[in-house]
C-alpha cells in the first residue's frame, strides 16, 4: 500500500478492459495513476465470452496482437437457430479475416488482462491488487478520493474513474447510478472453459493453425428465453456459455447451470464437446439496458466507464471494445481537465460528449428498442425457430409426398399456428427494432 495521504492525478477503480485502457493512456501521458483491483492480479475476477476486436484495442495499444496472449483469430462466424432436436445453421467465413492484422480474437480474460496490466505498469502506473474500494471520499460535491478496505487506505486524486464493472457500487454510492438495474436489463451468463486437444479443435471446427470460429446460438439454446448461447474456440480449449435476462430466468424458475447443461447436451452441440474436460466454471452479469440503461456518466471529479457505465451492444456481442474506447475517452477528458486545471462536472462533461459522438453510441441508439421488442415477442425464440426447422425437415425428408404438397403443408401449418397479420406485424416490428 502507498504511504498515508499520497496524492495521485487519477485513481482508476477496477483493472478490467475499461480501467486498464484509461490507466494505460493516462500513464503514457505522464500522469500519476493508481489502479485499484480487488483480485489477486488484473484479470483474476474478470469474465467475458470472449471475443476481442483488434481495431478498438489498437487504439489503446498499437500492435498489441503481435505480443499479447491471444487464443485464435476468428475467421468464421456461425449463427445457429436451435429447437429441441434440430439446428438451422448459417455461417460466414472470409479469407481477409485470416490475414494480418486480423479482425477479432478469442481471448481468455484472465490471461489477457494480466498482460495488459503489465503494460500499464510499464507505462508507469501503479497497480494495487487485493484491494476493494469501499466508498468515494467527497469534498462537498467533488469526488476527491476513495476509501479502500485497508488500514490507512485512503487515497486522494484529482479524478476518480469508476471502472468497477456491471455492479458498480461506486457509481451508486456517488449517485451517478440512481436506480438499481431492472431485472429485464441485466442478463446472467454462465460459461465453461473446456479443454480439448488443439488438433481436435482444428478438425471439428475446420480451421488450420490459430484460426478460430465463433458460434452464436438462439432459441432452444436458452430454452426459448431472450438470450443467447455461444461457443468460441480457444487454442486448446473452447469457451461455451449461455445467458438470459434475469427477469426471464426468474419468471421460468430456471437455474443457470441447468440451462448450460441443457445447451451442452443439444444434439448439434454435444459432438463438438466430446472428450473435452471442463477446466473452469464462470458467471458474469451483462448490462443489457442499451441506450436507456446508460447512467449519468460524470460528475465533479469522477467518470464512469465500461460495464459500470452499462456500455454494451448486446446485438453484436460488443462489450470489451466499448469498455476500452470509453476508457480512452475518459483519458482524453482527464487530460484536458488537467490542462485546464478544472475537474468540475462541466469540464469532465467533455467525456459525455465524446461518448455521445462515438460510433458505438450511434449503434446503441440504433438498437435502442431492440431489447424491449424481443422481450415482448417470445415467438422469435420459440415459434419461428420451430417453424424454420420444421420447414427444413419437411422439405428434406423424402417420404413419397410431392414437394408442392410439402410446401402447402408448411404454409398451412404456419397459418394454423399464428395469424398471418400477426406474423406480418412480428417481422415488421423486428425490422423496425434492428434496422
Amino acid at each position, binding site marked *: 500500500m502507498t504511504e498515508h495521504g499520497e496524492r495521485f492525478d487519477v485513481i482508476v477503480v477496477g483493472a478490467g478492459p475499461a480501467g486498464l485502457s484509461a490507466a494505460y493512456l493516462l500513464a503514457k501521458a505522464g500522469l500519476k495513476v493508481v489502479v485499484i483491483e480487488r483480485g489477486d492480479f488484473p484479470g483474476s475476477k474478470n469474465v467475458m465470452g470472449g471475443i476481442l476486436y483488434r481495431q478498438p484495442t489498437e487504439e489503446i495499444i498499437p500492435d498489441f496482437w503481435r505480443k499479447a496472449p491471444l487464443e485464435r483469430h476468428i475467421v468464421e462466424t456461425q449463427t445457429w437457430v436451435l429447437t429441441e432436436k434440430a439446428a438451422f445453421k448459417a455461417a460466414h467465413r472470409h479469407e481477409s479475416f485470416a490475414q494480418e492484422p486480423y479482425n477479432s480474437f478469442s481471448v481468455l480474460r484472465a490471461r489477457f488482462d494480466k498482460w495488459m496490466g503489465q503494460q500499464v505498469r510499464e507505462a508507469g502506473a501503479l497497480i494495487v491488487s487485493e484491494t476493494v474500494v469501499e466508498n468515494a471520499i467527497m469534498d462537498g460535491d467533488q469526488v476527491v478520493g476513495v476509501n479502500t478496505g485497508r488500514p490507512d487506505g485512503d487515497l486522494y486524486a484529482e479524478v476518480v474513474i469508476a471502472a468497477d464493472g456491471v455492479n458498480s457500487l461506486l457509481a451508486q454510492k456517488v449517485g451517478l447510478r440512481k436506480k438499481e438495474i431492472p431485472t429485464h436489463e441485466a442478463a446472467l451468463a454462465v460459461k465453461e472453459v473446456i479443454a480439448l486437444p488443439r488438433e481436435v479443435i482444428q478438425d471439428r471446427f475446420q480451421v488450420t493453425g490459430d484460426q478460430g470460429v465463433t458460434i452464436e446460438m438462439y432459441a432452444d439454446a436458452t430454452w426459448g428465453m431472450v438470450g443467447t448461447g455461444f461457443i468460441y474456440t480457444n487454442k486448446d480449449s473452447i469457451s461455451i456459455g449461455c445467458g438470459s435476462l434475469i427477469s426471464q430466468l426468474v419468471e421460468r424458475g430456471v437455474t443457470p447451470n441447468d440451462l448450460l447443461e441443457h445447451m451442452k447436451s443439444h444434439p448439434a452441440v454435444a459432438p463438438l464437446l466430446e472428450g473435452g474436460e471442463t477446466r*473452469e466454471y464462470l458467471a458474469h452479469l451483462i448490462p443489457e439496458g442499451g441506450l436507456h440503461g446508460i447512467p449519468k456518466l460524470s460528475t465533479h471529479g469522477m467518470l464512469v466507464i465500461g460495464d459500470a457505465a452499462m456500455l454494451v451492444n448486446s446485438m453484436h456481442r460488443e462489450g470489451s471494445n466499448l469498455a476500452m474506447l470509453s476508457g480512452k475517452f475518459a483519458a482524453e477528458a482527464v487530460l484536458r481537465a488537467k490542462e485546464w486545471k478544472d475537474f468540475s462536472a462541466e469540464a469532465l462533461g467533455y467525456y459525455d460528449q465524446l461518448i455521445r459522438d462515438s460510433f458505438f453510441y450511434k449503434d446503441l441508439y440504433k438498437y435502442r428498442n431492440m431489447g424491449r421488442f424481443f422481450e415482448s415477442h417470445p415467438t422469435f425464440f420459440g415459434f419461428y425457430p420451430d417453424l424454420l426447422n420444421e420447414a427444413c425437415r419437411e422439405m428434406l425428408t423424402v417420404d413419397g409426398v410431392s414437394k408442392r404438397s410439402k410446401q402447402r403443408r408448411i404454409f398451412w401449418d404456419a397459418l394454423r399456428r399464428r395469424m398471418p397479420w400477426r406474423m406480418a406485424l412480428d417481422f415488421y416490428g423486428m425490422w423496425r427494432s434492428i434496422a
Partner: protein
Amino acid sequence: MKQLTLEQKLFLNGFRPDRESHLRIIDQAKCRECKLRQCTYICPVNTYRWENDQITVFFEGCLECGACRIACQECKNLEWSYPRGGFGVNYRTG
C-alpha cells in the same frame, strides 16, 4: 462429454474463502414471506438454500456476479458486497 455436477465444477475453480460471508440476508422473516425465493435458483452456484425455514448462505463458492443482488431488489433484503481484497474466486481463464 461426462456431465459434472455443480459441486464438481466448483472444485475446478480457485477460491480463497474468507471466514465471514460477504453476503447477508437482512431479515429472514421477509424470506419466509417471499413467494418466489428467486435467490434459491437464480444463483449460478446455488449459494442460497432454503433449509429449516430459512435461507442459508453458502458464500464460499460465490462467483461474485451480482445476479442475486439484481434479483432481490424488490425486497432489498440482501446486503451485498464484494469479498474483502484477495478473497473470493480466482479465475485462471476468465
